[in-house]
């Protein structure tokens, strides 16, 4: 089991946001998280990568999990390859990592391979800010790959992208799971994308899992329940 979350709890100022959240994602599996605004999806992922501190529960990820964000969060002024190489900072000694000029050659080669994996090796020398939103999100995924994580999390990676770029990015995530053996969990707000690409769909409602099904078996009634009146944490 690559990602294993048990009984995750989190409250902000007495308001419960995660109320015993469980999630398993196996290597090679692509799981999509669905749920209304405020149901706790982002909070759960942020707890896994350490951007939030959970109040209780356990999280196992093997190595450190990698994460991509809706707002992408590249450094626009830096080149694409420098952004991707930055994924490896955690394993570089300080003296080789203070500036991109100091990055070892093997790292730059590895970064090129990661870029090639997302189909953007040709844009390596461009400034990240000059790429389209969809391309930037794929660069962010390449950065996550360069981190060599076995778990990849994505929080609404396609919410700001046009439909065709969104399709491409979600297909890439699915492919990284299937042929790359990563455990991939992505929050999406488009059930259609989930049905077309995911292995499994997990639904959150008020900080708990209320739905866990094979993507193919998803039906409209499930969605009505997820996005119904009390879907968000009250």
């Amino acid at each position, binding site marked *: 089991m690559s990602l294993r979350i048990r009984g995750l709890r989190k409250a902000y100022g007495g308001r419960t946001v995660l109320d015993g959240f469980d999630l398993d994602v196996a290597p090679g599996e692509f799981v999509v998280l669905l749920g209304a605004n405020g149901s706790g999806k982002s909070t759960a992922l942020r707890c896994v990568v350490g951007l939030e501190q959970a109040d209780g529960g356990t999280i196992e990820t093997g190595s450190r999990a990698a994460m991509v964000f809706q707002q992408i969060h590249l*450094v626009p002024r830096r080149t694409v390859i420098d952004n991707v190489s930055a994924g490896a900072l955690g394993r570089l000694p*300080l003296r080789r*990592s203070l*500036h*991109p000029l100091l990055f070892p050659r093997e790292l730059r080669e590895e970064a090129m391979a990661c870029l090639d994996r997302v189909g953007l090796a040709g844009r390596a020398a461009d400034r990240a800010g000059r790429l389209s939103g969809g391309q930037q999100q794929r660069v962010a995924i390449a950065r996550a790959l360069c981190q060599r994580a076995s778990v990849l999390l994505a929080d609404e990676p396609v919410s700001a992208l046009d439909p065709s770029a969104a399709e491409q990015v979600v297909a890439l995530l699915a492919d990284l799971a299937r042929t790359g053996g990563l455990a991939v969990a992505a929050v999406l707000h488009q059930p259609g994308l989930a049905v077309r690409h995911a292995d499994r769909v997990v639904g959150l409602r008020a900080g708990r899992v209320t739905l866990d099904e094979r993507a193919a078996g998803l039906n409209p009634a499930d969605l009505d329940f997820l996005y119904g009146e009390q879907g968000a944490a009250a």
Partner: protein
Amino acid sequence: MTLTPPRRRPVTLVTATVTVALVAVHVLAWEATEFSPAALVQGWAGMADFLGQALPPDLSGEVLGAAVEAALVTLYIGLLGTTLSVPSALVLAVLAARTTTSGGWVYQAARTVLSFLRAVPDVVFALVFVTAVGLGPFAGVLALIFHNTGVMGKLWAEAMEEIDLGPRDALRTNGASRVQVAAHAVLPAALPQCLGLLLYRLDVNVRSSLVLGLVGAGGIGFLVNQSIKLFRFDEMVTHLLVVLVLVVAVDQLSALVRRRIGA
């Protein structure tokens, strides 16, 4: 049907009190500074006398040459004082910006050092260094390094606090250390603002190195001081004209570069 607008807020007791207090403080200030238009009128004869001696300025080659040479020294003091304060300002800014600091006592200590360096005017630093290393431009450079570290460090720390925190968080989840995050997310994002502030400080520092000269730290300020002491007001005006050219040139250059980098 017409809608009735909400009633205007009445002048409150607070507004009235603040107004009275402001007027009172200004009256006090007027008296404490011995502000007196009458004295100015009475001193008019002295002013006319002064102007008579000062005009026309002494534009002889000798005076002008010495002035230009000294103005260059003033420029160099400002330049070195600014450049050499970059490393110390950078380190203190990183430690004092909430986006990069490790927090706790490091943050407090860095803030305190910056506040101290900012609070002590460069002229005071210059007086101290003139005593330590003697009269001359070197004391001026040292004074600027200290004071400018405080001012620029504070400005840079603020620029670093204003950046978008997303890239920083993204690198944190990669397992990057604080220093790595500062080098790869915060500094690149804050770079244009920091460069703009650097140029702005260069402009200010060239102007203050003139004042430093007045207290003995070299450059054209020193010449201005001397010509006043020798009652050569015509030479003094020449010096001031050269200063004017220097200050306008540096100001324009700095503004031009700032526009080009969009900061």
